[in-house]
């Protein structure tokens, strides 16, 4: 399986100056040394609690915010070095679906115009041909072509999300970055939108980077998954293995905190102590050690190395328990 997207050592720090008259520099380490690879047609999940930097990864990959360091290779080509026409070309290959369907569409632009504009900008189609394609895309996401004439405020959240997906498909991308695509929707609508994305994935052979905090969604949708904590990936591997038999204590707590449909298998809810620390002032050593039930003295001093999990293609973990 060839890699569609390779991310190596991605880093993004947000620097702000606070205070008067002596401003103090506050550095929020939103993303620290994140690396992963997404294969062709693969759905890669990125999971973690709020504020762990998963959305920042999604945006930094697309250079919607410029990453500070690291490499983003799209089919072996350096996306971060691209400019002008080359960058525009890359934009066709990777698209994003946003979390909030209410702000992701221009309120003063008709759906038809919103779908035809990217085609015109990229010289894919114009006029009647663009219109035909836009109508076909709407049908593909389960909306009638009559929706072309309408405006975003006439649609529900789920319908808007479908339109957002259709817009991402206008430029025929190979990879879709879905940033919490269903977390703003009702549960019943979530299932429909997820189903739609899974169908599109099969029909079009799309690769996905699926950012979510919902393990059950990740389990259902993704082939591989990476668990993020405080800007770092702490465990990565096949979704089945990571979610059933996590190696990292944090991943285990996440798994146990997610509800299981089978009451017989339900165990006592584990306690996770404290809040996620501020990324502006991360703890030394392993970022998880202040909350880790299995913390050892070494955890508070040394950042754990990346350890390959036993077995072929089982991913890896950053934890002293396995180091």
């Amino acid at each position, binding site marked *: 399986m060839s890699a569609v997207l390779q991310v190596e050592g991605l880093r993004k720090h947000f620097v702000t100056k606070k205070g008067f008259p002596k401003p103090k520099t506050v550095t929020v380490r939103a993303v620290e040394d994140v690396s992963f690879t997404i294969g062709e047609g693969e759905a890669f999940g990125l999971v973690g609690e709020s504020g762990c930097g998963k959305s920042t990864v999604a945006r930094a990959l697309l250079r919607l915010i410029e990453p500070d360091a690291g490499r983003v290779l799209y089919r072996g080509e350096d996306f971060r070095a691209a400019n002008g026409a080359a960058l525009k070309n890359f934009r066709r290959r990777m698209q994003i679906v946003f*979390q909030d369907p209410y702000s*992701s569409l221009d309120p003063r632009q008709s759906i038809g115009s919103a779908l035809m504009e*990217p085609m015109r*900008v990229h010289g894919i189609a114009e006029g009647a041909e663009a219109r035909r394609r836009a109508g076909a895309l709407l049908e593909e996401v389960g909306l009638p072509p009559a929706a072309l004439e309408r405006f975003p405020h006439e649609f529900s959240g789920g319908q808007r999300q479908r339109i957002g997906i259709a817009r991402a498909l206008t430029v025929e991308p190979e990879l879709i970055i879905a940033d919490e695509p269903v977390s703003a929707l009702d549960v019943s609508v979530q299932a*429909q939108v997820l*189903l739609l994305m899974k169908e599109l994935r099969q029909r079009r052979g799309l690769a996905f980077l699926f950012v979510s905090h919902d393990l059950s969604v990740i389990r259902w949708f993704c082939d591989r998954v990476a668990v993020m904590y405080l800007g770092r990936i702490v465990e990565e591997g096949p979704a089945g293995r990571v979610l059933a038999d996590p190696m990292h204590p944090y991943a285990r707590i996440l798994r146990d905190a997610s509800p299981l449909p089978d009451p017989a298998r339900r165990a006592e809810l584990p306690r996770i102590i404290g809040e996620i620390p501020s990324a502006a002032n991360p703890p030394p050593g392993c970022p998880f050690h202040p909350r880790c039930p299995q913390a050892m003295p070494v955890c508070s001093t040394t950042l754990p190395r990346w350890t390959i999990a036993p077995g072929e293609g089982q991913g890896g973990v950053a934890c002293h328990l396995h180091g």
Partner: protein
Amino acid sequence: MSAVSDDPLVAAEVAPPPPSPWKRALGKARSNPTTMIGALICLLILAGAVLAPWISPYDPADQDIINRLQPPGGDYLLGTDQFGRDILSRLLWGARISLSVSLSAILAAMVIGGAIGMVSGYIGGRFDLFVMQVMDVLLSFPSLILGLIVVALLGPDLVNLIVAIALTAIAPFARIARAPTLALKERAFVEAGRALGYSHTRIIFRHILPNITSEVMVMATLWLATAVRVEASLSFIGLGVKPPTPTWGGMTRDGFENILDAPWLAVFPGIAILLLVLGLNMVGDGLRDATDPKLRNE
């Protein structure tokens, strides 16, 4: 395709599409009597100005020396001035100056100020800080004083008058355009545009501009009233369009010389200014209320 749409779009297809935000705002403004009275006043004055060559009873420059300082009524409906010129005709012709100067000045200020505000807000950072400080400096001059300085420097003529008034109105337009731009650029559709490879120019003019026009248009109506006032004030102190061209401010000033024996000379142009400013303010307030998201029930 197994996916079904999640709620009854079918029903929406039968019902007529809900009106666009603009139509809704206009409908709301129409139901407000104050706005409609204001609009009526403005339209009447506009009609008077446009039709002045055909409807004014006399040439505004014709002097009927024998009938100078005639009181209202009789041959001259609103009387004559100290040179025997017909007040009504001069008022109608004066409306042309008042309206054309204010309209072109506000149009220029809207385009320039709006562009400055949008670009500044969109770029943000130090650039934005610098631009807005310059605007604050402009804003700290009262419009009349700024207009005075510009006209005094450039000399009083029609174009300079427009430049002067436009200059006083650029800063408020920059501000009114910048504020919603700051909010809009954080919305996901702007990010989506960037992810789709749209240029910044395209995002600013195709996606941000249509979303701020209502705010800017409301501002324009309100500032039109200010522009009319500034134009009248500058004409009043002799820095407007030069006589014998009739201007409302100039007529008021001329009338002052005879205020005791012929008060109508100053009163009628004064009323004209009052009506136009009042009408514009009524329309502006009505439009503002109609487009105010807090009052709009969504």
